[in-house]
């Protein structure tokens, strides 16, 4: 086989390799574009603000959730105690506007913790928050079942499942 043919074949091989990379980059590009809208938080559809108490350290906003059984009752701080949030199949709690329960407190992470329905029980799971979530006095490590009467604390806000 002549040298020229070999050179042409070698260039073809390298072209093929770079064509592969071109397709890889295109795949990554398509994926990044598809991902982009996921980053923006969806606004809460209906938000009913709890009457904001003067001087409260935390301001809590609640959406009207569907009646799927669970409720969160705010126990502390006293300024907002007694507020009730209906829980959906999955309710997120955090500082970001897109959360199901918004707690505007610098010690609360944007996406702090979530409550979700698994089989017949409610589960609570910390979403990698900076300051952690306390369940019945203990720091929450992993997803944990939660039953009515249990209390979770996020920042200063203590809530009871009912």
């Amino acid at each position, binding site marked *: 086989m002549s040298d020229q043919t070999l050179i042409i074949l070698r260039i073809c091989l*390298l072209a093929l390799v770079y064509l592969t990379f071109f397709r890889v980059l295109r795949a990554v590009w398509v994926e990044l574009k598809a991902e982009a809208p996921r980053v923006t938080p969806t606004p809460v559809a209906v938000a009913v603000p709890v009457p904001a108490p003067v001087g409260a350290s935390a301001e809590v906003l609640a959406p009207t959730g569907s009646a799927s059984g669970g409720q969160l009752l705010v126990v502390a701080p006293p300024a907002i105690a007694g507020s009730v949030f209906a829980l959906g199949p999955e309710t997120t709690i955090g500082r970001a506007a897109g959360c199901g329960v918004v707690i505007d407190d610098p010690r609360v992470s944007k996406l702090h913790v979530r409550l979700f329905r698994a089989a017949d029980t409610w589960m609570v799971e910390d979403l*990698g928050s900076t300051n952690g979530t306390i369940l019945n006095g203990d720091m929450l490590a992993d997803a944990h079942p939660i039953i009515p009467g249990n209390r979770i604390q996020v920042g200063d806000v203590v809530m009871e499942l009912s």
Partner: protein
Amino acid sequence: MTATSRRRRTRVAPAYAALKPRRVEAGLVLMVGVVIVVAYALASFGASASIPANLGPFLVWMLALLLIAHLATRRLAPGADPVMLPMALLLNGLGYVMIARLSNDVPGGSDLAGLQSTWTAVGIAAYIGTLVVVPRVRILANYRYLLGIAGMALLALPLVPTFGRQINGARIWASVGPINFQPGEFAKIALAAFFAAYLVESRELLRSRLELRDLAPIGVAWAGSLAVMVLERDLGSSLLFFTLFVVVLWVASERAMFLGIGAVLFAGGAVLAWSMFTHVQQRVDIWRDPFASPKGDGFQIVEASFALADGGLTGTGLGQGEPDRIPFVETDFIFAAIGEELGLAGSTAILMAFLVLIGSGLRVALRADRPFEKLFTVGLTTLLGVQAFIIMGGVLRVVPLTGITLPFVSYGGSSLVANYILLALLMRMSHEQRLEPVPAQS
């Protein structure tokens, strides 16, 4: 959020469905297969101007391996990133072609190609096995102490008299029964899991305030790395483990200061090692001026430099160069062989494949919600990137040479199998993320 949108979410489900990552992967795997077959045929043309006699069986065997890896991913991790597996297969394939081509010329290398193809099959089996055994990456956190002890035991295994073997100056081999392997390759994955789980527990402390005792872990890691270097004479692994720990510590604590402390400790360790050990001094001298003794100590690096220079832009052509002049070309110096026969274009392709792998790995880490998974994926990606950098940098004389394998490319069973396990863990993590929509949206 309203009830209707919630119901729609549960029905549409897997978030990856619209992206069809496996269809993309199938296309890429096919292209990688074509590249490998063309390269294999070309290497034979170049060396002996004839179509390789075993092209048929090679074609079937290799395409079967690629297909099995792809189909297993389709079944076991359908939502995973579509580009990581093809990139690993491309690196493995190009490495195999080079090893097969070298096996004709390297003295005593006639078995290399057969062994490497067996190791590739074992590696892909390990990849599939890992996907089966690890349904969720976070379960590894439950075995953190077991993994930590296993990792350290594996690291120390070559030092145990009955198991340890010293080959080519470094005491990094162990032999159990008939099998020789490098336990360090597997230790790195176990230790990445251990470091991640350990630092998740202590990250609160690391973030709040810094006391002297918070520096204890980094000190222990430093001492451990030094011990590996002193006792096993393995500079590459020592640097790899220390970098792994510092990077994971940095990400866990979110304090850039630890990078600084790590750099200072590294510099201290390097100076200490340089002043105490002649083999370290020798490596540094070769790095600074390999042409001081081109036929002696500097021979390997000098030959590698000549090989790279000979390659030029597009290389001498597969099978037409003389990479077999470089000692250990099939393991540590395979990058120089690719640089000679495929030139700058070919070696850049290897670099790009690593960049894509590392980029995808870091993206998986960025998207991880839970701290253990984030730290673990950062650790795995760091291992891959730093190991590739250490050896490619060594070959190119960017850093002093330390013998370590180029992941997926170099000849070597331990390295291939361990890196396929590492890849499987990244793929598993990537798949988990696609299954669960990011909570921000719910």
